[in-house]
């Protein structure tokens, strides 16, 4: 598949994003078609994320949007990795939407941001995934090479 297919679609998305984004989602950088960063924040008063902004990094392969982008949270002094039972403390996200099986080419950067936003909004558990410490210590794989078991589809 040629890079141009992905680029064409990303150009269209960028155009739309520059025009408008839903509240709580902001584009930080999109200097090329390989990697974009966006900030998201929870809109309601969820005490777990009150006053926090989170940085997302999107990496696009040449097969985007047929295949999912690689999406992770980035840890910065003023951008903590949100605490959530499906988000590891190294920023890796366990969400079926971002996996080979759950992804659909109809999804896009904006829809992924909105899904993550609502995943945080709905969360009441102040905890990391089970085995977080072990996983963060041991994992050397890229997110797309990890077989997540989507054990819980309610979030």
């Amino acid at each position, binding site marked *: 598949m040629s890079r141009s297919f992905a680029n064409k679609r990303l150009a269209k998305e960028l155009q739309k994003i520059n025009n408008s984004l839903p509240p709580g989602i902001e584009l930080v950088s999109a200097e090329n078609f390989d990697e974009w960063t966006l900030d998201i924040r929870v809109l309601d008063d969820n005490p777990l994320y009150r006053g926090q902004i989170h940085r997302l990094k999107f990496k696009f392969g040449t097969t985007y949007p047929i*295949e999912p982008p690689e999406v992770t949270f980035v840890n910065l002094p003023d951008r903590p990795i949100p605490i959530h039972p499906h988000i590891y403390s190294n920023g890796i996200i*366990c969400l079926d939407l971002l996996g080979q099986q759950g992804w659909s080419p109809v999804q896009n950067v904006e829809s992924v941001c909105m899904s993550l936003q609502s995943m945080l909004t709905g969360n009441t558990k102040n905890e990391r995934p*089970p085995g977080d410490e072990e996983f963060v210590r041991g*994992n050397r794989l890229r997110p797309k090479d*990890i*077989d997540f078991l989507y*054990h819980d589809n309610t979030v």
Partner: protein
Amino acid sequence: MDSDEDFMSAVSSEDDILPDDSENEDMSGGEDFDDFDEPDPDLGISKDFGQRKRVAYDIPFQVYKPADIQKQQDELVNEVNMILDIPKGEAAILLRHFRWNKERLIEDYMDRPRQVLEASGLALEPASLPKLEVLPGFMCDICCEDGDGLESFAIKCGHRYCVDCYRHYLAQKIKEEGEAARIQCPSGGCNLIIDARSLDLLVTPELTARYHELLNRTYVEDKDTLKWCPAPDCPNAIECGVKKKDLDKVVPTVSCLCEHRFCFGCILNDHQPAPCELVKRWLKKCADDSETANWISANTKECPRCGSTIEKNGGCNHMTCRKCKHEFCWMCMGLWSEHGTSWYNCNRFEEKSGLDARDAQAKSRVSLDRYLHYYNRYANHEQSARLDKNLSQKTEKKMVQLQKESGMSWIEVQYLNAASQALQTCRTTLMWTYAFAFYLARNNLTEIFEDNQKDLEMAVENLSAMFERPVTELADSKLKVELMDKTSYCNKRRIILLEDTAQNLADGRWTFNVELTGSAASSGPSNRA
């Protein structure tokens, strides 16, 4: 499927231990396998087991070559073609739609032919044949293109995308993900499967060959009793009646015509006597603990007496330091002279030290020591098997040379090959006995197991030591006979160990310190092995 029990009782009801027991009955008829979905009259597996002995570790199976697989498919297609009076091409589509369950297809089709045809994408009305369309005002949700003359396509769910995007999507599925018969609509959350006629319309010429190849593969992939041989480039498939739920009772090792031996349950290389679940846990543990344990499997060690570096060059554990002539055991670094009479010290972890552990720290140290004890031996046999293999390759070259010089025929030198094969297989078995033992809770049977393990280990080390001698010595007829004896002794010890372990497993007589049924999968990520 209540006849699974028949299979298990067939496996466990035989009390004979050695396969050379002439009282063993032949496997007669296919009654143990009457739970196969489709008994294929011509290629039924029963007759091929005529000579097989019923022993607990030896699982009946049948290897099929590509031509056999094609023939079985063709026969099913022909049958459906005749019974339902449907063209062969459509019969194949229907069979794939029904996951090659011919009985269900015929039954359903007799009841409501229209619905069956429609569900398989074989609707009869020309109006509903799949076609590309140009619709005014259409915008593709994948590439976000619109514009006049943009050709689009949708299956019955109505999720419509431009042809270009559809083809990109199919190329990804077919080429990269190896899907063909069950590709879903590109829309998120829409699980509708793209039917065969639509695919015929959309699949581009450069993908057709791969697409049809994948369609052919569904015959094997849709049947629980069939699996592809996992050896690279091997086109064969294997049929075996062992079910997933039997895997806590049996370790179904099968071997392909290509000589690859693998487990029908988990497709990994042969891991008898350890059950699949233990193997899965063990490999995960080893991967997780690899940094701690790495130093142990290193190829070099220091001589315990003079400290000079020693490199292991063959599979044998008996090491002699080149510098000071100190003889020691590679595994435990203990004196070799002590091993002649008490191999016991080297294969069995002394659990009693656990009783002395007073605080948590000491306990965790003991549990690490325990793991390292078994891992050390596991890794050692794994490595030795590799080294033995190198050695046998070298030996083979020398044998060719010797053949020229001594005039021995190729047949006459095959005993070396047999010895090398025995070493490989026995080392693999030994390797897995240590993973098995790691999870084994002590009961009155473990001592017999450890004795069998010890006997096999000794037999293997003896053979391995002999195998390392120069080829010119091995050509001597007396040594040749000795090597052949040692080879058959090794094989015999292996069979005794496997038989005993498998029998106890089938009878549920082992106690493990982990749960054997229900996988360890709880939640979260697991690394792809």
